[in-house]
């Protein structure tokens, strides 16, 4: 009786059953902690009776400033999860030697390390990037809004849905144990029969489509929504870097969508794209995923370069050195980043002409990057340096990025790559690039722009302590990996023999992680202390750093419509020049059209989440339900002709006057 019941349910619920709940203590405690976060948040909101407020002000918002903040919050939370993963990885590698097999089983270790890579790239780096872009780009180009607010919000919620799906994998089922890019044939059904790879596929598929939508929105926003007078060559460099990055997004992410879909078709419909038999070709997967994957690296790093460019100029109190060369360097990087992807698989066996071509292209891409590094240095040269945390991150970045970059040029030589491929040398290289290039950049950006949105600075002393812990920890964690790579240690090792003599270096790397944890704790402490002291010495005006670009011209907090009067721009560094003239704007206010709130972006993404979850577990009726929710959400939205409202000029005037008298900014 009970047996037939279970089998009926097995059909109804696809592959899903209770046996997929976590059983071992580490996964179970992770799952409980993970579930505790949303439950605690929900309870807190209920207790403080804030649901209505949350719904109205945040969940349904179309305001890029709020969407940006939501991106950053999600990215920070996911960063903590990615950090927890890496603590397990480093602990395992420090102790799992000889007869000791460490804290994780081999398959669990592979899941953890796959989750670390996937989460850090897709949900931390991408989240921070889109967060800062949403916050800053409209302000810097003098726009009241993005080009497609609804599309933008939907993009965020799809990102959220992807994030939710990857975390659900911790609660029920398992996660991909095939590395962050899930190479076949290992990731094919035959060798990875559980749901792990499917979670990976659908999480990235959904988040990837969200990124694509956001990318389209920002390309069009920057091209079409710039304030009158801001020619392309007068844009702040951050906007240029975002335009470059988003151009890569719109042309690279479709490749990812296809690659993931083909793998999913192999796994669910028994197709033979990448299988080892029946005429499949797994090398095509590697080719395609890197045709997306290499541009992806530049997608992440270009906006961070933009942040550094802003910071270099403001904190040196000089205009940016070599603006035009910076712009050309960005576009050289954009084009070249599409022509280097083979360097990720020199060892797969292509002929020497192919390897030589891509090796040379890889070396050439170092040139525009070098141009940018020198420009930052020349900007700082003879500047009146304002030594605050953002500048600390910038200087650390210049040093670390150069070391990591030189290691990269080294590996661009195919014969050398044959020695270093898949070794910890490579792991050290790309962490040096991504952590210093991307993460430090967004840390710097957050420290730089935080007061713009909240009206108080972050505590400087704690910020500096956090910086030093991070830097020391980071170097301790990754310099040993270069050496280990030379000694022959490969990536993703869960166990090694004691006679290899690797353990001391792995222990040093683990100590590095301890320092990084200290850095993260100090950052959290910095945030708490800063909130605590927000009305004291940390309180600042609307332009605490003597900024150069338009966002600093706005009052803090920034009104929903950003600019009560659209600024007049005729030069680069528009606000810097406006400050020198001391011009008082007496133009009359005008009516402002604003997008209405809408829950439908959330509904569409909710449908996608249901779809993805059901696809993972083969619950076909639920797949259709998810699809219908998304499609009808979209059609319902398209029937609404009144998606905007008009804020009359008189209301704008009143709000501005209230601000002027009450705020005293």
């Amino acid at each position, binding site marked *: 009786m009970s047996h037939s019941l279970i089998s009926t349910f097995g059909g109804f619920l696809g592959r899903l059953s209770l046996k997929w709940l976590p059983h071992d203590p580490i996964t179970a405690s992770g799952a409980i902690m993970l579930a505790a976060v949303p439950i605690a948040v929900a309870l807190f909101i209920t207790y403080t009776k804030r649901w209505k407020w949350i719904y109205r002000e945040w969940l349904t918002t179309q305001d890029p400033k709020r969407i940006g903040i939501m991106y950053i919050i999600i990215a920070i939370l996911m960063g903590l999860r990615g950090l927890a993963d890496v603590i397990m990885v480093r602990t395992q590698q420090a102790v799992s030697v000889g007869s000791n097999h460490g804290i994780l089983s081999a398959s669990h270790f592979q899941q953890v390390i796959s989750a670390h890579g996937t989460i850090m790239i897709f949900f931390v780096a991408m989240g921070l990037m889109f967060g800062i872009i949403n916050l800053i780009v409209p302000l810097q180009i003098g726009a009241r809004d993005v080009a497609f607010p609804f599309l933008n919000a939907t993009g965020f919620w799809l990102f959220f849905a992807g994030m939710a799906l990857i975390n659900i994998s911790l609660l029920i089922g398992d996660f991909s144990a095939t590395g962050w890019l899930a190479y076949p044939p290992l990731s094919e059904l035959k060798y990875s029969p559980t749901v792990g790879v499917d979670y990976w596929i659908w999480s990235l598929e959904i988040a990837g489509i969200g990124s694509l939508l956001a990318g389209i929105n920002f390309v*069009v926003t920057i091209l*079409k929504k710039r304030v009158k007078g801001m020619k392309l060559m007068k844009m702040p460099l951050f906007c240029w870097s975002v335009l470059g990055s988003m151009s890569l997004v*719109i042309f690279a*992410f*479709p490749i990812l969508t296809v690659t993931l879909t*083909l793998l999913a078709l192999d796994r669910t419909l028994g197709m*033979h*794209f990448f299988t080892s038999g029946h*005429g499949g070709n797994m090398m095509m997967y590697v080719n395609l995923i890197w045709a997306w994957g290499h541009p992806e690296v530049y997608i992440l790093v270009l906006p961070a370069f933009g942040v550094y460019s802003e910071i270099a100029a403001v904190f040196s109190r000089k205009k940016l050195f070599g603006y035009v060369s910076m712009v050309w360097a960005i576009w050289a990087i954009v084009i070249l980043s599409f022509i280097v992807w083979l360097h990720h698989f020199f060892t797969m066996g292509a002929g020497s002409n192919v390897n030589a071509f891509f090796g040379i292209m890889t070396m050439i891409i170092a040139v525009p990057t070098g141009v940018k590094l020198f420009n930052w240095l020349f900007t700082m040269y003879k500047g009146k340096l304002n030594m605050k945390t953002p500048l600390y991150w910038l200087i650390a970045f210049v040093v670390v990025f150069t070391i990591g970059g030189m290691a990269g040029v080294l590996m661009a030589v195919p014969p050398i790559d044959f020695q270093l491929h898949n070794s910890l040398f490579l792991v050290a290289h790309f962490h040096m690039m991504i952590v210093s290039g991307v993460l430090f950049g967004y840390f710097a950006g957050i420290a730089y722009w935080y007061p713009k949105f909240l009206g108080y600075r972050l505590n400087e002393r704690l910020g500096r302590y956090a910086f030093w812990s991070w830097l020391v920890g980071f170097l301790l964690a990754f310099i040993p990996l270069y050496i280990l790579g030379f000694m022959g240690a490969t990536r993703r090792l869960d166990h090694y023999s004691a006679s290899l003599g690797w353990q001391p270096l792995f222990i040093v790397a683990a100590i590095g992680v301890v320092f990084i944890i200290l850095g993260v704790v100090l950052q959290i402490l910095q945030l708490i202390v800063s909130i605590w002291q927000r009305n004291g010495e940390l309180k600042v005006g609307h332009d605490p750093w003597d900024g150069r670009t338009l966002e600093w011209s706005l009052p803090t907090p920034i009104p929903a419509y950003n600019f009560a009067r659209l600024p007049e721009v005729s030069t680069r560094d528009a606000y810097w020049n406006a400050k020198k003239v001391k011009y008082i704007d007496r133009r009359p206010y005008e009516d402002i059209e604003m997008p209405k709130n809408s829950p439908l972006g959330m509904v569409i993404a909710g449908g996608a989440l249901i779809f993805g979850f059901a696809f993972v577990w083969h619950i076909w009726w639920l797949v259709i339900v998810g699809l219908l929710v998304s499609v009808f959400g979209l059609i319902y939205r398209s029937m609404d*002709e009144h998606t905007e409202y008009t804020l009359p000029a008189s209301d704008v005037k009143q709000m501005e006057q209230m601000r002027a008298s009450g705020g005293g900014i």
Partner: protein
Amino acid sequence: MSEISPGLDLAKADQLIERHEKDATTVFGFWVYLMTDCVLFASLFATFAVLRNNTFGGPSGATLFSLPYALAETLALLTSSFTCGLALLAAQAKRKTQTLVWFMITFGLGLTFLVLELSEFHKFVAMGDSWRRSGFLSAYFTLVGTHGLHITIGLLWMVVMMLFIYKRGLNRLSLKRIRMLSMFWHFLDVVWIFIFTIVYLFGALHA
């Protein structure tokens, strides 16, 4: 245009320009989306080209495809692309009935195309040459099927569009959307040129 009259005040003109630019921005954004879709198809084409000889003992394109059949599909879609353009012209001339008629013809031709394609799929599967047979057939079904999926979405959109025009007329919003729908439909025809050439014609030559 009737909006431009000598007595037009400047504020009204500003508002009109602003609205016009807003619509132009949306249409441009849709164009950007279409460009991303081109890259999506390019990835599928690359995969197809790489796997085209991986028949694994199964049928090749030359033995499987019928050229006259593919030509019929092509002509149906090409004509529908043309009639879709005529629907756009009728809409811009504010002729509601004419717009609806052209859209219905377009829909009929699009549906014909889809039915032709699906029955071809059905025939192959019934012969035992499904997507499970070989890498080549996986690539074929996926490339052509993705195009078919786009056609299906286009047809669904056309139904919604016709209902919208029927109920609310040819207002500013429906004109904007008709422009985007016609772009989408022309784009699918452009993709089909390459499917026709690379999958069917090249396939026949490989014999």
